[in-house]
């Protein structure tokens, strides 16, 4: 399963003190959630955003859950979801997720040549008309840190 990075602005109105936001982050962490949080005192009051690392791929559902959970931790309504991204640990699911983000489907095969991993991504030729191959190639190489070969069928 992929890991989503869900960004949540804890207090878009900017009317809550930093120590209350810090206490909410501690509450989230103490419940086992992985949270990336900045030093709130060094951020503009309206832009105090944290990131929750959550397993799953349904961004809408994860964002809704995260904002609700943050509101409960804060004891006040108002947290707003921001952009969502995905971590890559170089798995097949991560590769397929990158391909899907370009609007494509694919299959993934892995092989080793000496000590170098080679990942072959097979894509239906009919789907690739509007996707520059170089963009897909660099996105996949970054997500996998392996040699990527794109094949069309």
């Amino acid at each position, binding site marked *: 399963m992929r890991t989503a*990075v869900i*960004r949540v602005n804890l207090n878009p109105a900017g009317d809550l003190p930093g120590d209350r936001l810090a206490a909410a982050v501690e509450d989230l962490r103490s419940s086992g959630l992985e949270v990336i949080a*900045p030093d709130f005192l060094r951020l503009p009051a309206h*832009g105090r955003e944290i990131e929750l*690392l959550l397993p799953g791929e349904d961004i809408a559902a994860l964002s809704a859950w995260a904002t609700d959970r943050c509101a409960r931790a804060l004891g006040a309504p108002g947290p707003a979801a921001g952009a969502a991204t995905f*971590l*890559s*640990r170089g798995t097949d699911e991560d590769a397929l997720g*990158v391909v899907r983000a370009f609007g494509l489907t694919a299959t993934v095969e892995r092989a080793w040549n000496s000590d170098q991993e080679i990942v072959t991504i097979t894509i239906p030729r009919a789907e690739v008309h509007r996707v520059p191959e170089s963009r897909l190639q660099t996105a996949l190489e970054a997500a996998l*840190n392996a040699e990527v070969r794109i094949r069309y069928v």
Partner: protein
Amino acid sequence: MVCAEDEIPPGTHKVFPIGRHGVGVYNVNGAFYAIANYCPHEGGPLCTGRVHGRSVVSADAPGGASVVRDGEFVYCPWHQWGFEIATGTTAVKPEWSIRTYPVRVLDHKVIVTA
């Protein structure tokens, strides 16, 4: 194990030959992170780029913007695309995810798990 903990003091990093493009191991305020040395934009050597914060709108600051979370983002030297070191992602291009690796410190040794 890639190196001793004190070889990467806070605010610094080192690149190790892991995977096709190498991996940069960063010490961000005492927390270690590892990210592939490859920019998803055009394949630049990401980990040779500068480490900085990110700019946000800040009405009270001179110029209407300020830099926050200093030291938590790396910028590719080719075209200045910036990525959060902890997650290997950028909110600007959600389809891009740079491979990151779990890092732990054990007996003052930095261990990257591939």
